[in-house]
């Protein structure tokens, strides 16, 4: 009973603090503090409710138990992280985005290909590509190569479509100016069109970060060596070791946010000139 009361108290306090904070003019500090307090409140309520309502830890382990499990099995988590994120997701991400970028630059030279590939690419980007996972696992074996292949297929089309669109983002005036400078194709590409395409390219890169992690983890459901985050999640669910599953989810969430944040920071550094970054 006391836990439930504590949960409601935490909710009331967290909400009240946030209302007070958000009434003030928005600064950097409140912009960070408000969501942080919201997150902490949710975790406290979760902890209180699990104890108060006596939910079995088999169904929903309390955050403290997850934290303890996390601290206790860093070895396994690290091994899974290397297998899934570094070997599977990251290598696939680099290969897929790199290939999509190069092909986008190539087809940009041929308007015919562009008009053909853009609608098809847009169509394919909306398809449930994750379904390719079992096929690719069959082709490339159980180890990380097949996971990287799934990631390549998943990130390729969003990246391709975004890059091609970005390369069209310059207007006639700018291209004519380059022509009056007697700039050749390479110079126009490197000095005008690629920089102008950067906001689009980074948009594609950001979408691809989430897709890469999802692809690498889900591909492991279809067969993997005895390590990796997807493998650990599916087997631990079978053993009802949900605290370990949640620990893996924490890793995935932190990695996903860090990956996304890293690309966003890079974007800020590269496209500092763009209106959306100056605001």
């Amino acid at each position, binding site marked *: 009973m006391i836990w439930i009361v504590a949960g409601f108290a935490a909710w009331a306090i967290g909400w009240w603090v946030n209302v007070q904070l958000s009434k003030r003019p*928005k600064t950097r500090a409140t912009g960070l503090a408000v969501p942080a307090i919201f997150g902490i409140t949710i975790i406290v309520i979760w902890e209180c409710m699990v104890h108060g309502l006596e939910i079995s830890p088999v*169904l929903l382990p309390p955050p403290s138990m997850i934290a303890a499990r996390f601290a206790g099995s860093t070895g396994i988590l690290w091994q899974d992280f290397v297998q899934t994120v570094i070997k599977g997701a990251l290598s696939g991400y680099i290969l897929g985005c790199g290939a999509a970028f190069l092909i986008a630059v190539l087809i940009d030279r041929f308007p*015919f290909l562009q*008009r053909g590939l853009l609608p098809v690419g847009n169509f394919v980007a909306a398809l449930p590509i994750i*379904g390719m996972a079992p096929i690719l696992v069959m082709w490339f074996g159980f180890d990380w190569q097949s996971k990287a292949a799934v990631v390549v297929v998943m990130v390729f089309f969003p990246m391709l479509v975004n890059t091609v669109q970005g390369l069209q983002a310059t207007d006639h005036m700018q291209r004519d100016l380059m022509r009056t400078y007697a700039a050749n194709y390479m110079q126009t590409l490197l000095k005008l069109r690629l920089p102008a395409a950067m906001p689009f390219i980074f948009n594609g890169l950001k979408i691809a970060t989430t897709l890469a992690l999802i692809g690498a983890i889900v591909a492991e459901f279809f067969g993997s060596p005895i390590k990796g985050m997807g493998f650990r999640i599916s087997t631990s669910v079978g053993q009802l070791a949900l605290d370990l599953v949640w620990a893996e989810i924490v890793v995935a*969430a932190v990695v*996903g946010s860090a990956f996304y944040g890293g690309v966003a920071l890079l974007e800020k550094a590269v496209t500092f000139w763009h209106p959306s970054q100056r605001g």
Partner: protein
Amino acid sequence: MARVWYRLGPILTVVIAIFVLWYAGTVALNAPWAHDKAKRAGVELSFSELVSDTMSQQKPKLPAPHQVGQEIWKTTGAMVAKGRAFSKRSLLYHSMVTLSSTLLGFALGTALGIALAVGIVYNRTMDMSVMPWVIASQTIPILAIAPMIIVVLNAIGISGLLPKAVISMYLSFFPVVVGMVKGLRSPDHMQLDQMKTWFATRGQEFWKLRLPSSMPYLFTSLKIAMAASLVGAIVGELPTGAVAGLGARLLAGSYYGQTIQIWSALITAAALAAALVGLIGLIQTMVLKRMGMVR
């Protein structure tokens, strides 16, 4: 005529190129197995024999498009003709299972997304505290915890459609929130001031200005949400142990090496996605035309 060719020509070319590459890939990938068989039988394969063999294997590495087409026909049209349209071997049955949880999840996700967006637009505290978490929630590979959601919901006695729909909902609410927040904020100051001079209440401002002007944004997000919802439904079917649905077909196919079955499930899923997204596009054009918003 020239204009139609200008638009369709390149697309047709690309599609034909994909089919040519697919057939070439079929020959290349299945050739080792064909050679293997021929060697054991002690015969030399001529080129045309090799090609015809690679196109007609039972468990090819890459089935040829017409094999997949035949399989799809066998499990849909032919079943209908026999009057067993919804038997367990029929792809129609599995598509219906996936479709129902996709639509339920999509409806739930859209409702949640719109509710959150209205809250975010009208409540400053919610804007500041919820919005960052909505964005952060999508950097978590949610599909990864699909098995856990299914098992946990099963344990407390909720099974069947709803657990899968929950995953679809989680994937589809995000684009709706982002799109609707943008849409509900799209009326500019001039229009909002005009509402104020008319002494409009907040409700009137919402129903008569903000909601109508958010429609184009809503439909764009709905298309993304629908595609995401289908992915959620398919992945949600994986951990239930291959009972029913397109995801279950994929998993069963990968267990037993039935590549043709995997590909036919995949193509069906793609067709389903295209049909659903196309349907929303159709509704979009109709609604926006009636609202006078189509340029």
